[in-house]
């Protein structure tokens, strides 16, 4: 399977050149770009690990691309996403987020069903890989 979180997961994996265009777009909008990585792609895993702080004063996408390749050296076996943060009043949240690195194999998620009364079912989604400890989930 393919985890399709983020804005561009239905497109073929982005090249660094393509990533650059999107990051520069965000920077030109005044948003702070940053990288986050994880080996737990659960749809509600909000807090991926931060690769440094958001770059609040960075005018050039090249700086983020440099960090991306540093991040890949350490976590290239997992998921890495670009996050663009907008601190404007009334938004103060993420404006764009897209995956820029993913494991070579994505085993996906187990859907567990707990049958409760009245034909209701309580559902739980679990990444198959999170049975392993953090850091040992993808190769």
């Amino acid at each position, binding site marked *: *399977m393919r*985890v*399709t*979180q983020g*804005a*561009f*997961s*239905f*497109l*073929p994996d982005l090249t660094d050149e*393509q990533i650059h*265009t*999107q990051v520069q*777009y*965000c920077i030109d909008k005044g948003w702070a770009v940053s990288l986050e990585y994880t080996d737990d*792609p*659960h*749809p*509600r895993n*909000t807090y991926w690990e931060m690769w440094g702080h958001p770059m609040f004063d960075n005018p050039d996408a090249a700086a983020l691309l440099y960090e991306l390749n540093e991040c890949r050296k350490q976590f290239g076996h997992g998921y890495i996403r670009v996050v*663009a943060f907008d601190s404007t*009043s*009334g*938004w*103060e*949240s*993420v*404006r*764009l*987020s*897209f995956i820029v690195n993913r494991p070579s194999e994505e085993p*996906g*998620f*187990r*859907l567990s069903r707990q049958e409760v009364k009245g*034909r*209701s*079912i*309580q*559902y739980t*989604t679990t*990444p198959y890989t999170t049975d392993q400890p953090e850091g040992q989930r993808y190769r």
Partner: protein
Amino acid sequence: MNEQPKSLTVTGKARYAAGVLEYKKMGYWEPDYEPKDTDIIALFRITPQDGVDPVEAAAAVAGESSTATWTVVWTDRLTACEKYRAKAYRVDPVPGADGQYFAYIAYDLDLFEPGSIANLTASIIGNVFGFKPLKALRLEDMRLPVAYVKTFQGPATGVVVERERLNCYGRPLLGATVKPKLGLSGRNYGRVVYEALKGGLDFTKDDENINSQPFMHWRDRFLYCMEAVNKASAATGEVKGTYLNVTAATMEDMYERAEFAAELGSVIVMIDLVIGYTAIQSMAKWARRNNMILHLHRAGHGTYTRQKSHGVSFRVIAKWMRLAGVDHIHAGTVVGKLEGDPATTRGYYDFCLDEFTPQNLQNGVFFDQHWASLNKMMPVASGGIHAGQMHQLIHHLGEDVVLQFGGGTIGHPHGIAAGATANRVALEAMIFARNAGRDFLADGPTILAEAAKTCTPLRQALDTWKGVSFNYASTDTPDFVPTASVSA
């Protein structure tokens, strides 16, 4: 009417002599009145009967929507009646429309109960629309003062928190209404939901008239839909949702259905505009208490919003709904099968999303409107749209919108999931191109064709719906610029 008649108000003892006095002489026409910052202002389009003075007609609307009745009553004098009288203060001929006038009427804030759309509308559209001296009457816009806006909850969740909950940023959300809208069993219905969500949509949607019918009762629908939602979520790693329509005959029924939806873990429920303003506000409060996104289908609005001479403009309904507290509202597609010219539709979208909407007559926005930090409301574009229009949709509607392709998903020649994938790929390719600085409106067809090279479902969708457009003149257009409908 640049030369407005001066105040005609009769004062003193003569004002309260028993009998009938023209409204314009009773204090409902005050051309020198300067609206206070705390006044509510309503802009009406009035069409007086032949021979009726437009100023008298405007004064009558002010009177009948505030304190007046058809004759003088002495009991006015027991009140601060000058404060409570609504005041028509300006009457302008409508450009290019003979016999029609824009009447500006100011209402004191104390005329209204805080936080009640029902109370507001009982005054503003309560009695006056059947008033005999008028051929027709339309409420075009309202200026709602901050002091009044602050008495409302506003959208239960809002655009930003909705995106945070869905973990979806930087692109329009994608949805589809399950079709056929009536007749599917719960089990078959859930199949459509599963295929569409797994294929790439964020949301599926019950149609307005799917409630609890012999072919599918509501509990069955909810159970099968949630199976589909969870299965699709596990298949994609994304948060998915389906608008479970909880519209029902009574509030008790609606609460029961909404609570069941919450118990099952749905992120969103849905109501229809026809349930009424009070029920909508009740559901908005329920949604805030229950971490639920609240989708509103504007079922029925066309009966009073579409004709320019009579009724209530949809821009006013959109304003009321943002106060009332829904999170999603259908606000037009521009290019689809339903009414909506580009400028007027832009005006509706701005009301949904702005922190402050400045006056913009070209878009039919007559007043500056402060939104006083009410949450933003997500506009929904639904009805006769398909992947081949993606560049136009993003151009007209922006990225904070739910694009709903019902037929444009389910009608795909290779199935529902393929239809969903086609839409998602078209969307992502177009947003990517826009961000990368391409002239995506002009290059739209090329961008789609490029994306289709690596996505067969998109190629098939483009071939199937090539050139499908709904190119009719709009009936509800701004009065201040020449307008045109958009063709695909």
